[in-house]
């Protein structure tokens, strides 16, 4: 496989960003939307990695994001660290919590794992809310400085989307590696993966830890961009929204979560009332589960496969059935 073929998703995304962002950043409102969308896209990508690849239905991504956000706020505001020095903390802290928890429960059924992500997310949220001296409790922390050279909203939009492209690049590398293949196998069949030599709970937990780090980065960007964090900024509803975004776009496809984010968030702006967002997201999820369980990308892929099959049979290429039929 050539370099380009193995980086298809990254290239497509990078080109889209390079075309769209210069246009979008001409308008202040759009710029702000683009920056926030990028943050949500990162969160949805983290769901894609954990649910779409490792099979962990995760409901704690917003909690991991808030860990990243609070890491940024506390390091820079309380301890006066220079910006960027807090990035490693925002990356590692969620992973250090996600890994052991996943390690404990990943050997159980996927339902049990989903439950425990919900539990760990709630515990993190409560802990943040009640550690008043440290996190500012319900008031949150204001005055988070911007990241050094990045100050204007437009630069943030660029930085955030650059981060999305980098994450997609890493994600795509993972998918094309032995580890990515192993994750796909064990999502369907742990026994089969174990017979290949995979340690299922270990690999699943590692994937979950990476996904929580991605969520941490999105929180880090959020804190520096908005310059304020509170328990309400990244609450449990965002976890659910991120999950819906990933599933609607196609959780197992690399770009699926990003497409889902753009679609759901874009259409939310057409809604009559903000309170109705949940109605709209929920119905979208149920409809997509009923008509296209693998999301919009799944629909597209199914369509492409049919076209390819048609073309093959036209061009007289052998199909699997013919090979079977011609077996000696």
């Amino acid at each position: 496989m050539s370099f380009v073929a193995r980086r298809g998703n990254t290239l497509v995304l990078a080109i889209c960003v390079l075309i769209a962002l210069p246009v979008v950043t001409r308008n202040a409102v759009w710029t702000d939307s683009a920056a926030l969308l990028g943050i949500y896209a990162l969160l949805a990508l983290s769901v894609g990695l954990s649910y779409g690849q490792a099979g962990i239905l995760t409901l704690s991504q917003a909690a991991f994001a808030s860990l990243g956000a609070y890491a940024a706020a506390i390091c820079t505001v309380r301890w006066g660290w220079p910006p960027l020095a807090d990035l490693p903390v925002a990356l590692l802290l969620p992973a250090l919590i996600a890994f052991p928890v996943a390690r404990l429960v990943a050997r159980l059924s996927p339902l049990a794992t989903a439950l425990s992500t919900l539990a760990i997310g709630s515990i993190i949220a409560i802990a943040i809310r009640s550690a008043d001296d440290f996190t500012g409790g319900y008031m949150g922390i204001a005055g988070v400085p911007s990241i050094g050279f990045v100050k204007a909203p437009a630069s943030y939009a660029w930085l955030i989307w650059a981060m999305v492209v980098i994450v997609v690049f890493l994600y795509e590398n993972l998918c094309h590696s032995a580890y990515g293949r192993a994750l796909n196998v064990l999502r369907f069949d742990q026994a089969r993966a174990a017979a290949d030599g995979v340690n299922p709970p270990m690999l699943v937990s590692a994937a979950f830890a990476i996904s929580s780090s991605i969520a941490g980065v999105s929180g880090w960007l959020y804190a520096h961009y908005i310059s304020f964090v509170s328990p309400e900024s990244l609450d449990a509803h965002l976890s659910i929204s991120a999950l819906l975004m990933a599933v609607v776009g196609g959780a197992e496809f690399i770009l699926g979560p990003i497409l889902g984010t753009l679609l759901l968030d874009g259409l939310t702006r057409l809604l009559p009332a903000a309170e109705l967002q949940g109605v709209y997201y929920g119905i979208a999820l149920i409809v997509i589960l009923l008509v296209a369980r693998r999301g919009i990308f799944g629909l597209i892929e199914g369509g492409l496969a049919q076209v390819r099959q048609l073309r093959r049979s036209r061009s007289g290429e052998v199909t699997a059935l013919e090979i079977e039929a011609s077996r000696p």
Partner: protein
Amino acid sequence: MSGGLVAKGMEVSFGGVRALRGVDIVVSPGAVMGLIGRNGSGKSTLFNCITGFVRPSGGRVSVDGKDITGMRPHQVVAKGVGRTFQTPRLEARTSVLTAVTCGLYASVRSSLVGALFGSPWAMREERLLRERAEAEMERLGLANLRHVEVGKLSLGLLRLVEVARCLVSGARFVMLDEPAAGLTSVEKDKLAAEVRAVAARGLGVLLVEHNIDMVRQLCRSVAVLETGNVLCQGTPDEVLRNDDVIRSYLGALGDIEDAAGGWQ
């Protein structure tokens, strides 16, 4: 205990069912050991408890003298013991090439972080894995199915993909659970040739097979299981002459062939 894959006194019970009652088996490097027995006699259970999928209630397993009893499946693979499943376990949408490449997981050396960042080292290894998988598929006659989704294959070819996935792993001992069921005679010959070649390379093979001709062709030694006990062991011809075996196993052969026919 010396070289080879040695299982001694294996005992397994599922609730009240005693599936294995003290089974001894030795697979030596470079030899094909046959394992036959009627349905439900415990062949697959023996596979499962050697490879760590089922916890034995008694007995010890060792590889080249090193004890592997009670290890988890992936640790057993790391010790160089590979296996296939009797019912192929494959996700319908993966391509044959990908499925076979998955078998190489145990030999991957680059780390998860390396893979994540796409280091040149990891990329080169990835190319090598692909080449090894392609070579194995070539030998088993699967090469032109490379891009076919496994969901479109017949059960026989699926088993062959399973075999390729196991052989490619670089294991020193491979355990094949009824690999030839559902194959055409040409494919069976290809499989037999590959099993022989694999043994000639010094691998030990444990072969469960209902097809007596194939067992006779390939195996130097055969063990017969009967309700969790080893009924007898010896060269294929000795075993097939044994009265107990004829009574226990060959008596049921007609049904088995029927059953095998019904699967396809």
